[in-house]
């Protein structure tokens, strides 16, 4: 049955596609870059092509890390020829995808709940990939360097602070003349880990928020406009005057949008940057399953809204080739891939977290057998 279906595209590709596109329908394996070839081409660290691993993987989920994930995919394809298809449909989509097994791996910025783990078909691993800061990004003509306290930020998203020239904003920003314009809040229209982390923070710092809205991937917003994905929110903020939204740092950087300086738990105003984002994980000991919330860190120099974004996979993956391809890809991403984090506005994993991630990747099995060769 399966071979039959696979025969059809071959026919189509020849008859229709190849004619039009000059054979671009086939994968073009890149030159193997295996320098100092490892003894086992299918082991770790990943040095090149491995013929026994699946040559394509399908993943879906968070848009928060999509900028770096798509970069990894591009680079990883050059190294191994493996095609990792990642569709940034939102963290909710990542969790649903892995739960229903409609994709090979998922991705989310907030850990799955106990209930969700129970609903899943078999044990799921949370693999932290990178850390990132969620910034309140705004588009107010002529205004830069806005400072926000936890109270004003939640007030804006609750709809209590309706205008930019509200006295509460003025108090924290003595040097800024705000327009008398209505504030347009932009939030996510899809199930989002970024939303979960953002609302987790607001719930921690504001009791009204906690009781009225709460924290979750999709919450009942008191008002505003919805955008799909981190990119959708950034797009909406960029095109809507007097708006404010929340996105991963890189999306604000790429668009040259303002990102508010936030007052952290220690009472200090902190910019979101690699340093302040990384500080949020200092002194935090992750539990065994690596699920943790890093928001509202008590560390004096830490940025308050920080998330560790996760890759989600089943601990045991029946398809051996896929299991190996995933283990190798995750290994590469959490090692070689970390080098791309800095340029893209993410913070690399701290060493202690990485050690735990390595152990998790090594624990992946296929039909009960370890996927990666023993050390």
């Amino acid at each position: 049955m399966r071979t039959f279906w696979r025969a059809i595209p071959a026919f189509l590709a020849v008859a229709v596609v190849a004619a039009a596109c000059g054979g671009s329908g086939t994968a073009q394996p890149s030159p193997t870059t295996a320098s100092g070839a490892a003894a086992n081409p299918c082991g770790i660290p990943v040095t090149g092509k491995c013929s026994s691993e699946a040559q394509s993987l399908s993943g879906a989920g968070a848009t928060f890390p999509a900028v770096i994930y798509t970069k990894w995919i591009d680079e990883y394809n050059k190294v191994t020829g493996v095609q990792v298809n990642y569709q940034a449909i939102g963290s909710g989509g990542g969790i649903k995808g892995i739960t229903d097994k409609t994709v090979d791996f998922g991705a989310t910025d907030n850990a799955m709940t106990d209930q969700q783990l129970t609903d899943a078909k078999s044990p799921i691993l949370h693999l932290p990939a990178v850390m990132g800061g969620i910034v309140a990004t705004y588009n107010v003509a002529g205004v830069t360097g806005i400072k926000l306290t936890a109270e004003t930020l939640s007030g804006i998203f609750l709809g209590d602070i309706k205008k930019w020239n509200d006295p509460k904003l003025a108090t924290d920003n003595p040097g800024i003349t705000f327009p008398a314009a209505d504030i347009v809040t932009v939030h996510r229209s899809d199930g989002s880990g970024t939303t979960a982390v953002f609302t987790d923070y607001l719930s921690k710092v504001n009791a009204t928020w906690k009781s009225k809205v709460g924290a979750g991937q999709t919450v009942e917003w008191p008002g505003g406009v919805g955008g799909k994905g981190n990119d959708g929110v950034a797009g909406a903020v960029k095109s809507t005057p007097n708006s404010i939204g929340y996105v991963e740092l890189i999306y604000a950087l790429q668009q040259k949008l303002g990102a508010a300086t936030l007052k952290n738990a220690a009472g200090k105003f902190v910019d979101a940057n690699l340093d302040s984002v990384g500080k949020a994980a200092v002194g935090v000991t992750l539990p065994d399953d690596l699920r943790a919330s890093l928001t509202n860190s008590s560390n004096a120099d830490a940025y308050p809204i920080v998330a560790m974004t996760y890759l989600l996979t089943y601990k045991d993956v029946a398809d051996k080739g896929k299991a190996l391809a995933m283990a190798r890809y995750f290994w590469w991403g959490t090692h070689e891939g970390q080098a791309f984090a800095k340029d893209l506005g993410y913070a690399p994993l701290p060493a202690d977290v990485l050690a735990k991630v390595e152990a998790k990747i090594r624990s992946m099995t296929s039909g009960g057998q370890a996927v990666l060769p023993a050390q």
Partner: protein
Amino acid sequence: MSTAASAGVLPRVPARHAVSARRRARERTMEVLVGGAAIGAATLLVIILGYVIVRGAPALNIAFFTERPLPFGVEGGGVGPAVVGTLILSVLAGVLAIPIGIASAIFVTEFRSGRLAPAVRFAAELIAGLPSIVIGVFVWAFLVRGVIGHYAALAGAIALAIIMIPIVARTVEEVLRLVPQSLREAGLALGAPHWRVVLSIVVPTARAGIATAVVLAVARAAGETAPLLLTALGNLFFSTDLLKPISALPIQIYQYAASPYDDWHTKAWGSSLVLVGVIALLSLALRLAVRGRAR
């Protein structure tokens, strides 16, 4: 469509002296108003196409068709996988839908004595009226979650096929009805069985009309987005495997339109231009073919 010929332009306004100035003014006003409405509606098309062409054309180059999308925020690359995906999805959906659509049209027109024929016809009309997102939900539940088990090109093609079947069925039905009854009777008089008459006489006579149906259906399916989001998912790479996720132009347009990147916006316009261009070429070819046949 026999009424089309009989309802001609109304006679001119009665002789001037018979009509008061007020009535004449009213007549003029209404003529201008309805004319404006018609021209306005047609102008809308010109405006939209104008935007698609002007904003889309700069995006088109070789790389646009041959390269795959680059990482978020990186300029360059192309939407090759989406172009290939749309071709595969449309062709496969057509292969699935066209025979079924034609068969059901034949069933409805040629074997109408049965009680089932009206039911088939009605069901086709109702499916045609369903929002495409609802068909997407169904295919997700039935195939993506069920039979296939994951997002796959095949699921996308089947969703498109479900949308195409009623279009093919109803258009072909209209065409078959136009085949003169005398042709059928002649066949039957020669002693041919009913099915034979249908296959060897009725269907070949209606060939051109059937081609129309096919083009209509393909044009419609190529632009569908909502059901594909729930079934084909999208793919960053070139893929021809029907059991893997696949990209398509409408999905690409949706993703790029909502993004904050100017380069992607341009590519969204470019993708729209390609999509609209293909559909326009199809319908233009169809119109020429039909006209050629009429002469």
